C-alpha cells in the first residue's frame, strides 16, 4: 500500500514508528466506519422496515464514529510528520495513544480496540523519540514545532466545519433513503408499507404518505413569490445601479434593503398570519399571502445579487451603445441586462432555492395542509401543502409508540432528503447556467 520508496533512506526506528502509527490509524478508521454503517448493514441484512429495530444505540454510535474518524485523521497526519522526524508527530501520537487507553477504560465495550491502538501509538511515539535522539543533527526549533502544531489545530477546525456538512448529508441519506421510492415522490397512493405505518402513527389517514402534493404546493408558492420578486428586485437594482448616483437617497434605499434582510422569519410569519386575514379577509393561510411574505424575505437577496451583476458590466459597453445613438432605456435593456444576465439568472435561481427551503414563513402564511392539494386552487383562499411544512407535520406526528416513533423519524428524514436534493439540484442548475451563459457571451 505504502510504496517502498517512501521509506527509503530513513532510519529503522523512524520506519517502525510510522508503520505503527499508520496501523493504529487504520484500525481506528476501520472501526469508525463499521460502527457508522452498523445501522445500514443491519438494515440490508434484516430487511427493514418490518424487521427488528436496530436503532437503540445508533446515535451514540454515530457520534463515536465521528470522534474516531477524527482521531484516525490525526493519526495519519502524525504518522506523516514522524517520517520527517518532527516533534509534532511524536507528541500527537503519544497523546492520542494515552487518549485511546483512557477511552478503552471508560468504554468497556471497545477495550480491545482501545488497548491495541493505544499501544501502537505509544510504541510509535517511543520509536520516533528514539529516532530523534539518535540523530541530534536534525533538531527542529521550538518555533517550527509551534508553527506545525498550530497549523494542525487550524486544519482540525476546518475539518470540523466541512465534516458537519458531510455528516448532515450522510445522516439524512442513510436514514431517509430506504423510504424514498418513485411512488413516495409522486403519488397519493403509496405502497402498502406506508399505509401500515400510517395506521400505526394513528393521527394520519391512510394514503397520505407521498410528498408529491407538497412539492407541487411548494413550487406554486415559490413561483408566485418569484413573480412578485423578480420585477421588483430587477427594477430596484437597475434603479440603484444606473439611475441614482451615490447619494443620500441611494444610501437610504440600501439601508432599508439591509434592514429588510435582517427581519427574522417569525416576524414575517406573524405578520402574514393576521394582516391579510383582517385587512383583506383572505384565509389565514393562502397561496398569495404566503407568496407575498416569502417575497418580502427574498427581495433583498434579489436586489443585492442583481445590483452586483449589473455593476460588473464594464462602462465601455454602455459608452459604445450611447455612441451608436441608443437611449438610456435601450442601453439598459439591450446591453446592460444582456451582459449581466448570467449573474442575474444565477442569483434568481439561488434565491428560489432558499425560498423553497424556508419553513417558518411558509407554515404560518402559506399553509400546513398535509393531505392533498386543494381541489380548486384559489389565490387567496387555499391552504397549500408545502414540503417544509410536510416535514414539520411528520415531526410533530410523533407518538409514544416506539415503533411508530422511529418510523416517523425515518419518514421525516426521507422528506428532508427530498428537500436537500431539490435544493442541491437548483444550486447546480444555477451554477451550470452561469457557466454556460458567460461562455456564450464571451464567445460572441
Amino acid at each position, binding site marked *: 500500500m505504502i510504496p517502498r520508496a517512501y521509506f527509503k533512506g530513513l532510519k529503522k526506528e523512524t520506519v517502525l514508528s510510522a508503520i505503527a502509527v499508520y496501523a493504529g490509524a487504520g484500525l481506528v478508521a476501520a472501526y469508525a466506519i463499521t460502527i457508522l454503517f452498523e445501522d445500514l448493514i443491519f438494515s440490508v441484512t434484516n430487511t427493514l422496515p418490518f424487521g427488528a429495530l436496530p436503532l437503540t444505540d445508533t446515535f451514540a454510535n454515530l*457520534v463515536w464514529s465521528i470522534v474516531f474518524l477524527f482521531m484516525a485523521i490525526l493519526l495519519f497526519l502524525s504518522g506523516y510528520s514522524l517520517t520527517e522526524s518532527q516533534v509534532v508527530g511524536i507528541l500527537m501520537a503519544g497523546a492520542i495513544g494515552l487518549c485511546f487507553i483512557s477511552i478503552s477504560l471508560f468504554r468497556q465495550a471497545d477495550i480491545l480496540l482501545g488497548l491495541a491502538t493505544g499501544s501502537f501509538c505509544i510504541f510509535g511515539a517511543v520509536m520516533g523519540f528514539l529516532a530523534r535522539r539518535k540523530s541530534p543533527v536534525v533538531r527542529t526549533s521550538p518555533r517550527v514545532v509551534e508553527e506545525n502544531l498550530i497549523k494542525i489545530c*487550524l486544519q482540525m477546525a476546518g475539518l470540523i466545519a466541512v465534516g458537519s*456538512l458531510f455528516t448532515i448529508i450522510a445522516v439524512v441519506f442513510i436514514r431517509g433513503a430506504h423510504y424514498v421510492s418513485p411512488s413516495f415522490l409522486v403519488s397519493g397512493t403509496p405502497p402498502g408499507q406506508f399505509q401500515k405505518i400510517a395506521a400505526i402513527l394513528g393521527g394520519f389517514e391512510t394514503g397520505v404518505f407521498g410528498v408529491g402534493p407538497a412539492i407541487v404546493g411548494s413550487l406554486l408558492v415559490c413561483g408566485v413569490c418569484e413573480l412578485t420578486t423578480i420585477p421588483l428586485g430587477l427594477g430596484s437594482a437597475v434603479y440603484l445601479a444606473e439611475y441614482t448616483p451615490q447619494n443620500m437617497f441611494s444610501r437610504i434605499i440600501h439601508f432599508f434593503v439591509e434592514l429588510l434582510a435582517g*427581519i427574522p422569519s417569525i*416576524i414575517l*410569519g406573524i405578520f402574514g398570519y393576521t394582516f391579510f386575514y383582517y385587512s383583506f379577509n383572505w384565509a389565514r393561510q393562502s397561496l398569495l399571502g404566503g407568496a407575498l411574505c416569502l417575497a*418580502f424575505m427574498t427581495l433583498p437577496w434579489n436586489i443585492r445579487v442583481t445590483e452586483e451583476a449589473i455593476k460588473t458590466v464594464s462602462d465601455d459597453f454602455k459608452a459604445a451603445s450611447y455612441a451608436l445613438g441608443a*437611449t438610456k432605456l435601450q442601453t439598459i435593456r439591450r446591453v446592460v441586462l444582456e451582459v449581466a444576465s448570467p449573474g442575474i439568472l444565477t442569483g434568481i435561481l439561488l434565491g428560489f432555492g432558499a425560498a423553497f427551503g424556508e*419553513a417558518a414563513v411558509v407554515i404560518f402564511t402559506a399553509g400546513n395542509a398535509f393531505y392533498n392539494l386543494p381541489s380548486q386552487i384559489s389565490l387567496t383562499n387555499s391552504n397549500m401543502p408545502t414540503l417544509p411544512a410536510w416535514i414539520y407535520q411528520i415531526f410533530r406526528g410523533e407518538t409514544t409508540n416506539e415503533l411508530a416513533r422511529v418510523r416517523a423519524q425515518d419518514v421525516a428524514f426521507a422528506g428532508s432528503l427530498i428537500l436537500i436534493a431539490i435544493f442541491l439540484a437548483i444550486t447546480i442548475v444555477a451554477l451550470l447556467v452561469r457557466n454556460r451563459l458567460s461562455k456564450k457571451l464571451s464567445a460572441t
Partner: protein
Amino acid sequence: MKRRISERIFELLLLLSAISSIVIVFLLIGYLGLQGYPAVANWLLNGFGFLVPYMFTTMYVGVGAVAIATAIGLPTAIYLAEFSGLRIRNLIKPSMETLSGIPSVVMGVIGAFMIAPAVTSFFGGSSTSGLCVLTAWIVLAIMSLPFVVSISEDALRAVPNSYREASQGLGATKWQTTFRVVLPEARSGILAAILLALASALGETMAVWMVIGNTVPTISLNPLLRADVISTYIARYIYGQESVGDLTPLYGAGFILLVMIGAINITVALLARRRVYAKTQG
C-alpha cells in the same frame, strides 16, 4: 418626443420598485408596532414580567451558539485566509456555501433526531428526549458557522499584503504574523461577522422550535433544561391557536425581538463606518 415619455415612465416605474423595500419595511414594523403597542407600553410601565426569561434565554441561546460557531469558524477562516492552499480552499468554500443553504427544517430534524439523542446519551439531559438549550446551541452553531467563516475570511483578506511581508521580513513566523499583525488589523471585521451571526441566530425560528423543548423558560444557566426563546414562543402560540384570541403579547414580543436584532445591526453599521473612517484617516 414619444420616446422621451416612455423613458420617463420607465424611470418612474424603476423608482417605484426601488421604494418598494422601504414601503415593506415600514409596513412590517408599523403593523407590528401598532398591534403590539398596548403590550409594549404595558411592559415599559410595569416591567417586562413574564417576558424577561424569554429575553434572557434568547440572548443565552444566541450567544452560546455564536460562541461555539466562532470557536470553530474563526480558526477555519484563519486557515483559509492565511495557511491553506488552493485545493483545500476549493473544498471548504463550497461546503460552507452549501451548509448555509441547508433548509432550517432539515437542521431541526437533524437536531431533534440525531443531536438530541446524542446529548442525552452523553449528558443525561433533564428529560429523556434531550431537547434542551445545549441541543439548540449545537444546531444554531452549525447554522451560523458559514456566516462566521465567510465574513471573517473576507475581513482577514482585506488586510493588505504589505503588512504581512513587513512582519515576515522582520523574521516573524507565519503564525506570529497572523496573530500579532493580521488578526488585530482585522479585529473590527471579525467582530462584525460575530455580531451578524448573532443577529441571525436570535431570529432563527424553525430549527430552534424543533429542538429547544418548548417549555416556559426560567432564568437559569443550566444548558440541559428545556426552554423557549422569543421566536419559538410566538411560533408555538400561533401554531397552537385555533380560534382568534388576543395576539397582542405576541406582537409585542416580536417587536422586542426586532428591537434586539435592530440594535445589533446598527452596531455593525457603526463599526463599519468607523472602520472606513479610520482607514481614510490612517
